């Protein structure tokens, strides 16, 4: 986000900061727009800004032909910089593996309504891409992020007809500087996820339009990794018991780093720390086995799978597609690529009584433990 944007956004937010943001914030209220002071606020800013990194990586992939995403550029605030081939390859695997899981979900039991909740959605374009692919009536989409990020996202939607025409009311209800938006298909919630974990608050923060009765896929693409493990447990428990109580089918997809304890992992942890980015759950769930176990612990008892992105590239990407992608750029750094890809994973788990939509969609899709 460019510096010139920040001040006026904050001013706008100051008047708007309502009950839904920063509930149960730690410490005394800070200056307008940042309810926390000192190190915490700086760390939050660093985490919020990771989103523009993700956006830039997406744009680089799109421009080079790795990904087909006409919306990525519309959300990026920084001029696009070409990423190194190995980073493009990694972003490609990340996006296409998650897309594959979501596509299987969407195309199982067609015609039945479905719901997706994207935690720390940032500038993710998935809602808009899904609108182009599936009949709009079938999907209710929710995004949660910090107000500064949701405001920037909604502002971008308002600016671009390609985006606002995808909304049921063509964004008519969107006001300048809005941090939240709701409609029958697309919902943006300005919220610190940590407020959901606050046990002193009786009721969970409201998520307007969240339907407790339709199959729901929760997505954390590089989001929950920035929170404490206990906070993550509480958030997911809120979802599995309060927001989407049983027996509604519910699932979780995680994309995040693993293997913090080898040489590469140690350098990763310290490099990110020097950018004020902490990854608290990384050391708690260091390996794929830990990822599967945590999914079960959260309550995703009918399936709990995980694979690193190196494996996913080899097993989930068709030979034809591999050839196409390999032809996009000369990729010299093969050993490094393998190292990098082995340090990120996708984990997916579900609760649907063993016969619901997720079992049908994903039951046959094996992970690296079942099939190597």
């Amino acid at each position: 986000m460019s510096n010139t944007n920040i001040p006026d956004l904050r001013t706008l937010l100051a008047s708007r900061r309502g009950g839904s943001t920063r509930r149960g914030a730690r410490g005394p209220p800070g200056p307008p727009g940042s309810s926390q002071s000192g190190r915490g606020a700086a760390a939050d800013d660093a985490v919020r800004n990771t989103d523009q990194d993700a956006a830039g990586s997406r744009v680089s992939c799109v421009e080079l032909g790795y990904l087909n995403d006409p919306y990525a550029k519309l959300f990026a605030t920084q001029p696009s910089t070409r990423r190194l081939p190995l980073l493009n390859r990694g972003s490609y695997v990340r996006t296409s593996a998650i897309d594959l899981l979501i596509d299987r979900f969407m195309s199982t039991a067609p015609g039945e309504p479905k719901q997706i909740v994207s935690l720390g959605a940032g500038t993710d374009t998935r809602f808009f891409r899904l609108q182009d692919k599936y009949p709009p009536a079938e999907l209710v989409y929710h995004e949660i992020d910090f107000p500064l990020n949701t405001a920037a996202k909604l502002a971008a939607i308002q600016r671009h007809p390609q985006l606002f025409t995808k909304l049921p009311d063509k964004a008519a209800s969107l006001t300048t500087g809005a941090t939240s938006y709701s409609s029958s298909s697309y919902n943006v919630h300005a919220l610190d996820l940590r407020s959901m974990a606050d046990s002193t608050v009786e009721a969970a923060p409201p998520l307007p339009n969240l339907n407790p009765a339709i199959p729901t896929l929760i997505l954390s693409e590089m989001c929950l990794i920035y929170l404490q493990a206990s906070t993550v447990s509480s958030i997911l428990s809120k979802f599995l018991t309060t927001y989407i109580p049983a027996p509604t089918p519910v699932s979780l997809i995680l994309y995040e780093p693993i293997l913090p304890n080898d040489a590469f992992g140690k350098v990763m942890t310290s490099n990110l720390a020097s950018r004020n980015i902490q990854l608290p759950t990384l050391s708690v769930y260091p390996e794929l086995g830990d990822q599967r176990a945590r999914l079960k612990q959260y309550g995703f008892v009918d399936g709990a799978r995980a694979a690193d992105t190196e494996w996913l590239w080899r097993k989930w990407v068709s030979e034809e597609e591999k050839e196409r992608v390999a032809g996009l750029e000369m990729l010299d750094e093969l050993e490094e690529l393998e190292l990098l890809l082995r340090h990120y994973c996708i984990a997916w788990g579900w609760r649907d009584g063993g016969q619901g939509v997720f079992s049908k969609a994903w039951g046959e899709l094996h992970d690296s433990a079942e099939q190597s």
Partner: protein
Amino acid sequence: MSIGGSDLDKAIAQLRACRPIPENQVRELCYKARELLIEEGNVVGVDAPVTICGDIHGQFHDLMELFRVGGDVPDTNYLFMGDFVDRGFYSLESFLLLLCLKVRYPDRITLIRGNHESRQITTVYGFYDECVRKYGSANVWRYCCDVFDFLALGALVTGAATSLSPTEGPLAENAEAMPDIDADIEIETLNSAGEVMFRYARNSDSQTSESSQTLGSSPARPDPTPTRVGAAGTGASGSSNGTSRNEGGAVLCVHGGLSPLIDTIDKIRLLDRKQEVPHEGAMCDLLWSDPDDIDGWGLSPRGAGFLFGGDIVKRFNHNNDISLIARAHQLVMEGFKEMFDNTIVTVWSAPNYCYRCGNVAAILELGEDGSNAGFQRRSNGDRGGGGGGWVLGSNDGTSTRNSTDNLRLPEGPGRRYRVFEAAPQDSRGMPAKKPVADYFL
């Protein structure tokens, strides 16, 4: 102005401080270097002792660490196997320093070409951008690329001792049981403090038990991670005097590896190298290929060069009287990795590659044979009689896999690996503005 004599020393001093030299000096330097390199054959002859280094990739401060560990130029005789530029923040300073040293001490440093010494690759992997950023134009990049075209494709090291005299240094804390000091020492691994981490003797019991494993990534080998204490390591010269035996074959150094179009070293000599690295063909293969656990040749996932198996290496070494191929090109977490019964080694000299990978680096020292005098360079027939030739693979239970296991290969040189870590963070002066997207966020 011309660069020579004291100007050259000034430029070296400036570059050692990691400050670029003015554009006109670069032009002059590159011109001089080209005049020098044009005289070199495609395969440069190098006499042991020599210290062989792998990829540097613009990690200037780690190059300084390499010189600290391996000794300075001209005290130590160096051979760099390419990939000086790209990826790191200081490709320019690193390459120009090496080039200055080459012009200043042409007999003490050999530079051969890596696949990154190419116009096309440097525009993707950073060297081009770095030149434009530091000089405001692409001129310096162009001068450097013109030098790249003249770099040799390989080097042939002759006169290397077949065994090391053991380093009289302290043992590293985690060193394993060492063979008898009187034994014929084939391999030694030292940390950056000059402490011995690992040593083994040719044909000894430890040899037998280790020979089927891959050195450099063998779990039986002690952890190569060095501790940072003590004085600088000594250079290759002097510290690794060999015994008087002289049965070893030569060591071929090349950035990538072999080519299906090249079955003799003479065929490398016949190539027309003074051009941009082509997309295919022998010259491309030499700079791009990788050894792999396959039989014969395979397609490379890099999109250039080939994969080649142990049978290819053994046959090539046998036919060319080579005892060892030293190559770089592939990141190795332990700094070096021997393969195919010690017939080929990968040497990697960029620690914590890209400031991200967490690997250690290594350099390979070959000592001088005591009786260097009568050594026949490029001899193809005589394989040094006297029953010395160690039959590679004979200890390997699965050795009937292919016929090359029965080839008698020249005895390998004694090899001293010095392993080192990245220069301390505070000495490297990371640019204030960190590069974007090191990781997936």
